[in-house]
């Protein structure tokens, strides 16, 4: 009679190169796949998060193994990858691990740029979409909402967010030091990513004249360009377009270099040596480090930008460690709740609570009635325990009654609430 198990199937920048991530059936912008996933056998609730760098399917399932397999197949449908490849390029977290993972994601500890603030908003949007499509229920409601509050706690108790925000702030400061006023300057985004978009947003807030987006797939470039009110080009058009931009932010996730020194050298002449500020956010690098040797070309990669931000490395590590501890602590707490979402522990907890009430009440009564015979004492004790047993009989029978799994979870949630408005008292 175990309640549902939480599981997360995902693909992120750490396990899969961008070529693989692009093959996923559900790229950001497409129809929300939750309805399809919910139809998978065993899947009770689900939520789908898709960003540039990751895809996460959060489910609760009565048969985790089969559901996980089906979700993977669903995600990679039409990718042409073999089962082993699918396994290699995606991860599966079950139970406590899933809790830990989602909390880390929400707290931006799993992001390419640790602490970047967009992921929480993306997760909230994903949750809202799933809620509208009614694919989330009591378990995921609580789970995902908990992840928001964990993220919030991490943000208030640690300084983790400052480094990502200040990195894009540093990029803007540098751009201004190199180019002067940004009002007549153009920005080019090569590839897309959380950090690149954040930096682009900062630059747009500074009033840059235009945005150009270049991407391997033109459709995605067009989508992103629309968001920034800019134009889109394919990656082949990159060098040509370089003549007309002043700032380039690259985050393609390609395995090799995208732009070489010798590609840019002739362009600088065409540009009449107008300076070019290149920001390489990708890991591994997109831009040839030798580009910095060119006159009037200024190349910064993400580590350089991090160094600009005065927060030193050990400090940043300290903040990340602190955040990780918070996540572990919250995972533990949530795990306790989750374990309780099972019939047996719920019954045990109900009994324990009732027994503790019985014991304390009997003791109080007996201490007031001092001159009772042992028989009378016994009678009172029996009265108390039979009261409790009779009171609990129906709820317990109701819990043990077989029902379809989703109703089961709702029942548990309800009974737990009826008996203990505050969850920790119950546990």
């Amino acid at each position, binding site marked *: 009679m175990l309640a549902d198990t939480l599981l997360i199937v995902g693909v992120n920048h750490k396990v899969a190169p961008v070529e693989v991530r692009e093959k996923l059936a559900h790229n950001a912008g497409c129809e929300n796949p939750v309805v399809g996933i919910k139809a998978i056998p065993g899947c009770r609730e689900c939520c789908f998060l898709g960003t540039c760098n990751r895809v996460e399917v959060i489910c609760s399932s009565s048969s985790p193994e089969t559901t996980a397999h089906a979700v993977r197949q669903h995600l990679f449908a039409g990718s042409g990858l073999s089962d082993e490849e699918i396994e290699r390029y995606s991860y599966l977290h079950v139970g406590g691990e899933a809790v830990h993972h989602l909390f880390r994601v929400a707290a931006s500890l799993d992001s390419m740029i640790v602490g970047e603030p967009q992921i929480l908003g993306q997760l909230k949007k994903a949750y809202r979409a799933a809620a509208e499509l009614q694919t989330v229920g009591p378990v995921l409601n609580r789970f995902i909402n908990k992840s928001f509050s964990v993220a919030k706690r991490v943000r208030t108790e640690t300084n983790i967010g400052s480094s990502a925000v200040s990195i894009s702030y540093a990029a803007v400061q540098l751009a201004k*030091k190199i180019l*002067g006023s940004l009002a007549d300057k153009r920005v080019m985004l090569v590839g897309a990513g959380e950090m690149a978009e954040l930096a682009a947003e900062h630059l747009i807030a500074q009033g840059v004249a235009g945005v150009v987006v270049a991407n391997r797939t033109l459709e995605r470039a067009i989508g992103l360009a629309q968001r920034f009110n800019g134009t889109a080009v394919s990656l082949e058009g990159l060098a040509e377009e370089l003549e007309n931009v002043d700032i380039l932010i690259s985050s393609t996730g390609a395995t090799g270099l995208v732009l070489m020194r010798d590609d840019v050298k002739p362009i600088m002449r065409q*540009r009449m*040596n107008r*300076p070019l500020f290149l920001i390489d956010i990708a890991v591994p690098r997109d831009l040839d480090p030798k580009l910095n040797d060119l006159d009037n070309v200024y190349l910064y990669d993400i580590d350089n930008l991090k160094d600009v931000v005065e927060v030193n490395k050990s400090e940043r590590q300290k903040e990340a460690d602190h955040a990780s501890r918070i996540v572990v602590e919250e995972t533990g707490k949530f795990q306790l709740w989750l374990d309780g979402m099972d019939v047996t522990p719920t019954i045990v907890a109900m009994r324990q609570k009732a027994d503790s009430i019985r014991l304390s009440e009997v003791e109080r009564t007996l201490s007031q009635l001092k001159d009772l015979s042992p028989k009378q004492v016994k009678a009172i004790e029996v009265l108390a325990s039979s009261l409790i047993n009779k009171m609990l009989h129906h709820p317990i029978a109701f819990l043990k009654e077989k029902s379809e799994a989703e109703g089961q979870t709702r029942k548990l949630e309800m009974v737990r609430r009826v008996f203990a408005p505050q969850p920790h008292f119950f546990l």
Partner: protein
Amino acid sequence: MDVLFPLTVLGYVLATIIYLVWFIKQQKDSRFAARWVLTAAGILHTLSLIARYLEVGHTPITNMHEAVSFFAWSMTWGFLIFRWRYRVKNFGVFVSVGITLLMAVAAMSSREVVPLPPALRSHWLPVHASIALMANAFLAMGFFGGIMYLLQEREIKSRRFGIFFERLPSLESLDSLNQHCLAVGFPLLTLGIITGSVWAKQAWGSYWQWDPKETWSLITWFIYAALLHFRFTMGWRRRRAAIMSIVGFGAALFTLWGVTFLLGGVHSYAG
């Protein structure tokens, strides 16, 4: 009357010290103070030049002391007027150092009044010499702009930020400073050479006689002309422009001092 010049020097030194304190500590009050002291020193300097004019009876640009002092004066007022139209962050710090160095040279040169040689008794003297020295003043400002550019660029290129990154303006504004200094300095330089040539025709009967000073001023002119030419045709801006204006100013200084001390020639009385 002799008290004005030392007071002026003192004023410049004080302004420079306050400017340097401002540069390091970045407290706003010190910047205002520095600018006011510099302006006061500039006024004192003007009075001191007038006094010198009354004392010697001709425009005081005939020997090293007078020429360098006038050079510094042009730079002070060039900077202050420039600043009024066009601001460059912390430019004053560098310019004030330059002015003080010039004043140190002026203070160390002989201030003795010698009767004017006959060749210099001409209305062309104040015209030619003052234009040439004012050209130098603007080229000197371009020189300091170039130094600031290279300092700032070095920190940005190496991605290691020291004291300059925050304090110096953007590369873009340093580059346009260079352009502005040249836009004033180069026409003045050209005019200085032309007036000198016209005066030479009057005094010696030929426009050009390849005197070392003439040759070197022509070399200087060519350096700046090349810089301007390539700036507009081939986009030689920024780093190259900065280096060129440093080199060009080196040539200008050599024309002013090097020629006088090392090469001699018809201009050598200016020492």
